[in-house]
């Protein structure tokens, strides 16, 4: 195999993995909240963007990337708690709350989008973060930035921890019980409202982390909020609402689809190729690949 072919192959694999890992992470956050709270949060993309913008502001003010990430994650937790307290919990017991949540979060999306446009619009040609880790690792002829390796390790590490949490921890078992049957879980002594709160906090924090990792790996602009929101919902639907494994598998499929289509067709075709894949999968498995 020639160096040129190896170069293209390695770049395709690395792009598929990194993009897929970030997609999977964000979709996992979305699916936990939707599967447990029945909250299709239309403002996910805006929170993803908020994390990236906050980190950009802090690094622009001289903070190191690592410190900025920790600070933004802390901010994400505080904001999630605040949002849950002010807005989300008020609809926990509303019939057909998924529709109410969707409309409310759609409004939130519009508000946040307007604020970002007013406050950050002027800097939209400058949104990149300094690397978390400097240097390059050669994989054959392909130089992979260590920063992207760090992003990959963090993303897969968090996904593994999330899987273990849901699988083996008491909270995870309670959360899965609420996923499956809210009333039955309550009868078994699970504090359903507390689980809702924890799920929202966990899911939102993961979305915040996704925004941070994306900003570390790539440049971004204000349109990334919409792109990521659609992608995360698509992954959740194809993977099966509530399934973290589904989010991981489909996230990687979407990531690799984008990377492969962009090399064999064009970067433009790649932007909608995975949505075509979603439609194709749903034709054969309307409930999602990993739904239970």
């Amino acid at each position, binding site marked *: 195999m020639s160096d040129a072919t190896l*170069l293209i192959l390695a770049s395709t694999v690395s792009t598929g993995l990194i*993009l897929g890992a970030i997609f999977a992470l964000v979709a996992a956050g979305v699916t936990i909240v939707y599967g447990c709270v029945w909250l299709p949060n239309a403002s996910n993309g805006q929170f993803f963007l908020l994390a990236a913008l906050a980190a950009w502001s802090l690094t622009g003010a001289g903070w190191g990337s690592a410190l900025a990430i920790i600070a933004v994650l802390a901010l994400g937790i505080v904001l999630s708690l605040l949002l849950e307290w002010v807005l989300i919990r008020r609809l926990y017991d509303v019939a057909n709350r998924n529709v109410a949540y969707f409309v409310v979060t759609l409004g939130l999306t519009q508000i946040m989008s307007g604020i970002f*446009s007013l406050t950050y619009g002027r*800097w939209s*040609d*400058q949104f990149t973060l300094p690397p978390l880790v400097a240097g390059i690792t050669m994989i054959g002829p392909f130089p992979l930035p260590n920063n992207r390796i760090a992003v990959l390790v963090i993303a897969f590490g968090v996904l593994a921890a999330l899987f273990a949490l849901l699988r083996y921890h008491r909270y995870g078992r309670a959360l899965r019980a609420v996923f499956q049957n809210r009333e039955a879980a309550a009868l078994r002594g699970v504090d359903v409202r507390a689980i809702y709160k924890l799920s929202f906090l966990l899911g939102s924090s993961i979305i915040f982390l996704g925004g941070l990792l994306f900003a570390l790996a790539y440049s971004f*602009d204000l349109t990334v909020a919409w792109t990521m929101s659609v992608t995360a919902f698509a992954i959740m639907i194809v993977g099966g609402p509530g399934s973290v494994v589904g989010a991981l598998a489909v996230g990687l499929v979407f990531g690799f689809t984008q990377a492969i289509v962009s090399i064999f067709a064009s970067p433009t075709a790649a*932007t909608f190729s995975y949505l075509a894949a979603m439609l194709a999968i749903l034709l054969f498995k309307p409930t999602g690949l990993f739904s239970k």
Partner: protein
Amino acid sequence: MNINMKAAVVAVSAAIGISAGMATDDARAQAGAPIKVGFVTELTGPWTFFGTSCVAGLKFATDEINKAGGALGRPLEFVIQDNQTNPSAAVAASRNLDVNDKVVALSGPTSSDTALAMYGYAEQQKIPFLVPVAAFPQLTKPGTKYTFRIEPNAAGWGYSIAKFLEQRKPGAKVALMYSDAALMRAIVAGFKYQAPRSKVNIVADVLFPQGSTDATVQAAQVKAANPDYVIVIGAGAFDNVLTNQLLDLGVKPEQIIHPYGITSQVFGWGQRSAGSIYGTFFDIGLDSLTKEGKDFISRFDSANSRPPSYVENYCYNTPYILKEALQNAGSADREKLRDALSKLKTRELTSGVPIEFDKNGARKEYMYFMQIVSVDGKRTYKSKQIFYNEWDAEVIPVYDLVK
């Protein structure tokens, strides 16, 4: 306060200050009511950086002109309105300035979209329209009568790059990586037209959709094609990503050509891009800077903590061009001003390049190619001029290439 915040404060202060400053200028200037020019620019929305940078340049020239007695013995007043980077808002503001302020001319847009919207209004209402910074070719399409454009058209930039490569490396193999935006498509159209005529071979041609954030795979494809030069035109911060990914793959900075570069872009490319080449229309590293040009750079830098680029320079020159045309016209009458602009033969105050307009309002075009020597964080940079050329706008079929 970081540099971004500082720049924002300075830009907004400039926008507010220029209006406030007019009152002082009114008092200082000679007898007579001010000559009003409508300046509709991007103070909010995605193009804010360009609009506010433009206003910062405009302020310097307006102050200087009014301190020296204004135009036709009257103060020159730029009535600034925000078009929100929105074509409809740009037309609404133009109408307001036309009907309520009775402006003698319109100016201000730094985006081709808003400029095209104002173009329709200005041509229909027969108002002289001096476009400082907008490169879409159709702004000076055949039949244009009232619109005059200071910035060369974008297809011409592509033509100029091919001419530069023809001289620098005959038979050069070139890869193109660009975003799918009107400006980028126009540059590439001009380049592709001229490339075979200049014996330049295009070995890779990669178009990215708007909103792209990664080019790992395409950069590898381009590297595998083994080009002598890569022309990089990414939208927004994607430009930095493209550049860095090419550099990561071992493409040398000297092989990278950016068709245009402003100060913030040079800072974004950073020190690792030292040696790379960019096109421009004004730069701190020009060989031909006049005394006034050096003075403008120095004062702008002091006030804004960064050097000006061609955006600020064009907006600095705009009031001087209007002043000279008004003096030649002998009155603040729209038709006379239009005629004076169409006959104007002058030079940019800051660099001495010729300013004259053809029958469609297109300027005698020109472009500098600069090479980055060093970049000092986000404070300043050094560059050297390596090529300059001039051409007539219609040396290529510009209005057929880009519709």
